[in-house]
């Protein structure tokens, strides 16, 4: 295994109508890594994730997992391999949290088959890993945003995927929930070995928890590597178009991205 790319994106091109969103994307992710995908709003992070799951088709290029092209896989096979927690997941009315998580067992069930003991067990474990098991019989719509987010992560885990994609899982959450989710993802990774690619808007959080960072800017991956290599003040200022200052985290030295006021006070 070593440095082999488990998830490999090669030469991906994607356009919405006239607008070229992604142009020649190359990404190599090792098995078991947590990689953060960062970039300005609208850079195409969500689009890239959706292309990797196979629900969007690229104009050119391909994604492969463990050497197999995902375009060659049937939808159910892909669903067993790759799971995505979207940015704004739908909250279906009337579903309990447990029922919501159970939906993810679909790729593992045959057409007319009902959920069996194993499916129920996998779902339960997924919920325990995300600290949501206590919500199981409650209606999903009654939970707070942060609690719901954890249930959606549980759902993705119940798919038993090899690759877990998360689209801005910490957006709109306060610092407590943000760290809770990141800690939870670490735990998940340790226990299950799942490979994760997380689109994030918070650079510092990404640097603190992700082993590698990829920067998406103007339709290309402009940098990829360890956080302290990738997140330099020149690069971040250039990509985001605003001056920043990079400091080192007092605890582990990972980059801390600090905004810089244009005019000092007074």
């Amino acid at each position, binding site marked *: 295994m070593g440095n082999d790319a488990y998830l490999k994106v090669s030469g991906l091109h994607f356009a919405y109508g006239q607008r070229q969103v992604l142009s020649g994307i190359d990404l190599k992710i090792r098995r078991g890594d947590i990689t953060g995908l960062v970039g300005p709003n609208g850079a195409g992070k969500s689009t890239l994730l*959706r292309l990797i*799951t196979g*629900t969007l088709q690229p104009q050119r290029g391909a994604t492969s997992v463990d050497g197999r092209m995902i375009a060659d896989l049937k*939808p*159910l096979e*892909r*669903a*067993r391999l*790759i*799971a*995505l927690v*979207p940015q704004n*997941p*739908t909250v*279906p*009315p*009337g*579903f*309990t949290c*447990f*029922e919501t998580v*159970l*939906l*993810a067992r*679909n*790729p593992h*069930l045959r*057409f*007319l088959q*009902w*959920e069996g003991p194993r499916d*129920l067990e996998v779902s*339960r474990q997924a919920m325990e890993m995300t600290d949501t*098991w206590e919500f*199981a*019989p409650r*209606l999903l719509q009654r939970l707070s945003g942060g609690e719901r987010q954890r249930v959606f992560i549980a759902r993705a885990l119940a*798919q038993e995927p090899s690759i877990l994609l998360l689209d801005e899982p910490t957006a709109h959450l306060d610092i407590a929930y943000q760290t809770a989710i990141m800690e939870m993802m670490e735990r998940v990774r340790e226990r299950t070995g799942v490979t994760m690619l997380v689109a994030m808007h918070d650079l510092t959080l990404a640097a603190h928890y992700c082993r590698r960072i990829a920067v998406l800017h103007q339709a290309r991956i402009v940098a990829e590597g360890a956080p302290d290599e990738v997140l330099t003040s020149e690069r971040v200022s250039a990509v985001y178009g605003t001056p920043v200052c990079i400091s080192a985290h007092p605890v582990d030295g990972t980059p801390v991205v600090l905004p810089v006021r244009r005019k000092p006070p007074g």
Partner: protein
Amino acid sequence: MGILTWRRDAGAPGGEAAVRTVAFAYPWRRLVVGALVVVLVGLLAAGVGSVRIPPVALGKILASRLPWVNIDASWPASWDTILWNIRLPRVVLAGLVGLALAVSGATYQGLFRNPLADPYLIGVAAGAGLGATVVLVTPALHFVSGVNMLPIAAFLGALLAVTAAYGVARRGGGLPLTTLILAGVAVAAMASAVTSLLMIRSNPDVRPLLSWLLGGFGRGQWRDVLVVLPYIVLGFLLMMAYGRTLNLLQLEEEEAKQLGVNVERAKLLLIVVASLTTAAAVSVSGLIGFVGLIAPHAVRLLWGYDYRSLLPMSAVIGAGFLILADLLARTAVGSGELPVGIVTAFCGAPFFLYLLRRSRRM
């Protein structure tokens, strides 16, 4: 049985375990009980009508049909005819149509993710009404080669309307659902306009037409049952098979795709099956409203949102409700008949309000 109970270790010293019940139940028992209740309701309904037949005689008439039983016929032949050739086919037909409308309504509600959807949403009712009107105002078309053209015309009209709506809405391999609804509204408006025009311009008495449009089982025969049975049963089974898919479709289309659902195929199949089933029902019963809209909601309030249980239980409620509504329609007015659609509206609305007030899930 399926209701799971999990032990959850408190982790505290002393090791108390909290028992938590997670509600996940297979719906077999409620299905069987529901089906039995419907059969019972049907039998009871067959025992009542505008002609009073004493229960003992009813029992004897039924028993006499069993091949090994030999009872002297001490009752008038008209009673036998009434029970076997008028009431029973009517009750069975009402049950089948109620089942069809309720399941199709639930399917449409799930497909369009809209609680106001009913089986007539994309033009089935207006198309069927137009087909029926064309036949009813053209005496020459009533019977062609001895075949009653009315149900055939209604059926074809319904399918044509849905096909038109589908053709308009379909876009480059996909089927945007909001467009389909709007197309259905437009097609329905057009068909209704033509229907009204035909009604106004026709000389023959419009009463038979009006009573068809309002729905009724007054003409019900065993032959009608045999004709619609395959459509309705097949449609029901197919829609039930897609129960889990319907659950998944409650998520955005893309999320459902990520969970492995072939969304376009599911949409197309469900629309076709639900439309066919509804068209078959409407062709023998006219346009009966309320059942397809209300039955699924009543089931949701009582038993939840999982479509694998929602679909069959809607069938149960729809069948039972329509059998009882038909009972009322044929006994409320002396020797006359009320259109069933009026009864379903009058009874359905207050009942639904009551359920809403009682609900805890909403």
